[in-house]
């Protein structure tokens, strides 16, 4: 009897078809992709295949065998690696196997790492950063010599980040060491599954398989409605008014996860829920990524053992291990994307065959439409793509130094390997040489005598010879790049979490703020730490976190347009549209309700000035770019200064004089031509790129954040990313890292491809212009948005003087 059959019999379980299919494929020496949601037995599908392959080669004897590392299992999360370790170790224990499994993450001690090197386990469960660290240690090729399997767990998650690029590069090296390596990815369903598979497997894709779980989990979405839609707020992102309606759901469930979109919202909901349902105190918790590891772990442990009634959380709980006690999920506000919504819904009802039920709480009346839009998208399998990073030179530079720190590399061979990855498929030899030059000569094109020292070229091999540089590089691998964060600690030293330095710097000692579900009084700030004590005061400021303002995804925007079109054609087959009818009727009465082939533009005047609204339904990032382009183009005809506002449905140009719409239409200012040029001219692209540059400079090793606990020692080599950005702009315009910053802005911040598609679509639409007398249901949410950008053709110098003038007047 095979190992798998034996174990399943012991457990009295029956393997699923997809598990059997995976075992079969691995037995046939294939690589592949397993498309499977969490909590479906995906670990066992791969694990028994791997064990099977191992014992086919080395039939089990009594004496433990040491055959070196056999399998590498990569996960994006430490919590997940722990879960996989326990599950796989249990198998070895149940069946009395000599197959040893170990963990290697940022938490693994140096002693333990040394032990793993001396006597390697059969399988290592690890993270992308830890693999880079192994590649930075001497004779890593021996360590990997017997490697037969690599599993990349949650590949869909890694792929959309630079950690995915780290994985691609590591795989290219490991494939070179071990051409027979078998690669397996595990991925939730995304729009571009095939591409995900191709990127991961590379040249092994041709002969590889895709295995899909046969467990279709049904998702039921129920929207929570205000009693009278007409009286529900037209604006807002908080949704507190519907709070009384979710208390019964929490009470009727074992454990409820309440997902919100941003951390400040989580803090507020937590406070308000406690006020409204004091009996839940002690059974309710808060979970977001600014809280300390300890606190989050406490919440996760209590979710595991089912002792919590509700947890208010952000995307921090999107991923990760399953909590069996969770039977209800509530989404507050727009979920922004379909895949994300499904993932959240899937956090309930884990046992195979169970339903996943999720409640959707709209935070303003128009948002109700997202309930039916999401349902439509899920039914029609419209899932978002994960956009992989390409040409991430910062990661390549980091990787080159990594190899130079261990055994060194030769340029020709590395070029071939790197070019084989998806990320660097288009890299030219010149660009590759530039990267080498950057680490060897520091980009010194003048070749004058220079003391630059990092990577040294000798005997055809690029190596790091300086121990300090090697050590500093190892420490900087896996530095998490984020805004400058400050620890929040009690006076006694107990950690509560991290808050943006920016927020703390606005507080004075004695001020009270809400954090981690508590009222805290700031006592003092010292060495990047904010010391606090508990406060009895009831009012406090909630830190506003950046990063929560995700745009509505392309697929979800499409579905929303489809819902509106359905309504217009009287195809009202869901509750959401029925509930929304009064609001949509009003929109149609005071202005117009656009159908699929129409673009609505509204113009009206208020005390503030002349408002021009365009409803493209493309998500806020695209709207930001569109608004800037339109403002720029209008400015070409006539000087104008605009204040710009947008939400996920449309954008607004506000000006002190009237924009002549006929002029806009006659001059074809919404034309899809020259989008790329115009957006770079219209947005303050330098400022945007400067912000992006922080990540890039850190990954490429320009910014060193210091040795843990010894910040002072490295003070002399610290400089801000802005400083590097400035000197590169001044002296090295062709620096690839600088160019990368602009490319990332276009691809990820402005979503240039999507923007182009939107302009293309608009050029085929009929444009409807209305002049309503007062704000409409569509325009009102944008009108009152206080976060505004400004567009103007003025030079930076005159902008400064304007600011100065306004400051001096006050």
């Amino acid at each position, binding site marked *: 009897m095979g190992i798998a059959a034996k174990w399943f019999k012991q457990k009295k379980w029956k393997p699923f078809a997809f598990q059997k299919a995976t075992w079969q494929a691995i037995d046939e020496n294939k690589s592949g992709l397993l498309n499977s949601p969490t909590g479906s037995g995906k670990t066992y599908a791969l694990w028994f295949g791997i064990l099977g392959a191992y014992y086919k080669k080395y039939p089990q004897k009594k004496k433990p065998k040491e055959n070196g590392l056999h399998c590498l299992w990569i996960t994006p999360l430490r919590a997940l690696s722990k879960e996989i370790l326990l599950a796989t170790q249990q198998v070895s224990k149940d069946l009395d196997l000599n197959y040893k499994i170990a963990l290697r993450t940022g938490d693994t001690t140096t002693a333990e790492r040394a032990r793993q090197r001396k006597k390697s386990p059969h399988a290592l469960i690890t993270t992308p950063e830890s693999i880079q660290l192994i590649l930075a240690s001497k004779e890593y090729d021996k360590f990997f010599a017997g490697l037969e399997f690599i599993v990349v767990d949650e590949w869909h998650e890694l792929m959309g980040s630079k950690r995915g690029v780290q994985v691609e590069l590591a795989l290219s090296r490991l494939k070179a060491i071990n051409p027979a390596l078998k690669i397996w990815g595990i991925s939730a369903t995304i729009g571009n599954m095939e591409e995900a598979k191709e990127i991961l497997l590379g040249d092994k894709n041709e002969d590889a398989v895709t295995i899909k779980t046969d467990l279709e989990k049904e998702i039921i979405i129920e929207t929570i409605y205000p009693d009278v839609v007409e009286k529900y707020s037209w604006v807002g992102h908080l949704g507190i008014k519907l709070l009384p309606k979710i208390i019964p759901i929490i009470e009727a469930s074992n454990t409820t996860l309440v997902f919100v979109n941003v951390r400040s919202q989580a803090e507020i909901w937590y406070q308000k829920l406690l006020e409204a349902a004091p009996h839940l105190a002690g059974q309710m918790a808060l979970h977001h990524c600014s809280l300390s590891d300890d606190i989050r772990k406490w919440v996760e442990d209590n979710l595991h053992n089912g002792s919590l009634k509700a947890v208010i959380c952000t995307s921090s709980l999107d991923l990760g291990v399953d909590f069996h006690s969770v039977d209800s999920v509530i989404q507050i506000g727009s979920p922004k994307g379909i895949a994300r919504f499904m993932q959240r819904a899937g956090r309930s009802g884990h046992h195979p065959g169970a339903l996943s039920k999720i409640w959707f709480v709209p935070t303003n009346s128009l948002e109700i439409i997202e309930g039916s839009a999401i349902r439509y998208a899920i039914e029609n399998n419209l899932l978002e793509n994960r956009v992989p990073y390409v040409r991430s030179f910062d990661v390549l530079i980091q990787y080159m130094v990594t190899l130079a720190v261990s055994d060194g590399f030769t340029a020709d061979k590395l070029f071939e390997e790197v070019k084989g990855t998806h990320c660097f498929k288009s890299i030219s030899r010149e660009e590759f040489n530039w990267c080498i030059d950057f*680490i060897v000569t520091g980009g010194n094109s*003048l070749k004058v005598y220079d003391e630059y*020292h990092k990577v040294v070229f000798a005997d055809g091999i690029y190596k790091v010879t300086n121990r300090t540089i090697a050590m500093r590089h190892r420490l900087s691998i896996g530095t998490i790049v984020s805004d400058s964060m400050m620890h929040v600690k009690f006076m006694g030293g107990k950690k509560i979490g991290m808050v943006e330095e920016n927020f703390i710097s606005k507080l004075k000692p004695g001020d009270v703020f809400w954090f981690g579900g508590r009222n805290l009084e700031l006592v003092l700030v010292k060495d990047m730490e904010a010391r606090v004590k508990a406060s009895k005061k009831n009012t406090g400021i909630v830190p506003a976190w950046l990063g929560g303002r995700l745009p509505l995804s392309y697929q979800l925007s499409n579905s929303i347009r489809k819902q509106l079109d359905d309504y217009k054609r009287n195809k009202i087959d869901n509750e959401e549209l029925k509930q929304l009818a009064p609001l949509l009727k009003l929109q149609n009465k005071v202005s117009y309700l656009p159908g699929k082939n129409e673009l609505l533009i509204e113009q009206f005047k208020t005390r503030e000035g002349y408002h021009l609204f365009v409803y493209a339904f493309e998500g806020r990032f695209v709207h930001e770019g569109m608004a800037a382009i339109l403002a720029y183009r209008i400015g070409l005809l006539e000087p104008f200064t605009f204040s710009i506002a947008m939400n996920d449905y449309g954008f607004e140009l506000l000006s002190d004089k009237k924009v002549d719409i006929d002029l806009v239409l006659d001059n074809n200012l919404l034309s899809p031509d020259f989008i790329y040029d115009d957006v770079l001219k219209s947005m303050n692209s330098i400022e945007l790129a400067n912000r992006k540059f922080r990540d890039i400079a850190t990954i490429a090793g320009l910014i060193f954040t210091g040795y843990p606990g010894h910040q002072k020692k490295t003070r*002399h080599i610290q400089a801000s990313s802005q400083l590097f950005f400035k000197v590169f702009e001044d002296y090295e315009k062709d620096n690839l890292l600088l160019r990368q910053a602009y490319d990332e802005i276009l691809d990820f911040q402005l979503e240039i491809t999507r923007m182009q598609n939107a302009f293309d679509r608009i050029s085929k639409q009929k444009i409807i212009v209305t002049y309503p007398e007062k704000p409409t249901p569509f325009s009102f949410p944008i009108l009152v948005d206080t976060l*505004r950008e400004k567009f103007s053709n003025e030079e930076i110098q005159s902008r400064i003087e304007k*600011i100065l003038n306004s*400051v001096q007047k006050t």
Partner: protein
Amino acid sequence: MKYNYAKIELLGEDIYLLPQKALYRPHFKQLVISDLHLGKTTYFRKQGIAMPVESHVKDIDKLHFLFDTWKPLSVLILGDLFHSDYNKEWLWFRSLLLHYPQIQFILIEGNHDILNEENYKIANLLKAEYLVEDTFIFSHHPLDQKNKINFCGHVHPGIKLFGKARQSIKLPCFYFNGTQFILPAFGELTGLYLLDRKEDSDYYLVLADKVVKL
């Protein structure tokens, strides 16, 4: 460009605040600068951090411009002249000094000035901890005293201004609170320490080509 300075009067003496982030005392024909952090580019590069080779060119140009325009008799440097350990950029500074033999240079030691004493032995360079005059006292760190006006550096003062439509900008500044007069960092490769605005203090903002009182 030369005349775009802000003129102020302190205890009867005229003082010009220059947009090159320097201060000029016409009565003594003396230039005062602080926190140059020379050698930073090379120091970074030696540590394997690829700051462009030419990064310090602006500082050199600015010094030449000031010396040639104002033709000072003496130049007072309020510390942090050199960023860190010795490197070849010191040789460049040395030759600059020798190029202006008519100028007396005085360096007030800062916490970054950690070179061997040997290196400071240049004919027209003096080194001191403080410089005390009747009404003024010059130092690197701001001093805690009330008797005289203390010209100092070290802080790299800056101000963040907020305009309409969520615009903001950070600018270096001269800062004066009645006893301490803090100079902005002269070096281009330096950061800013943002000050909170106080009612009883003066802030002179350094723009590209002029100095403006806030």
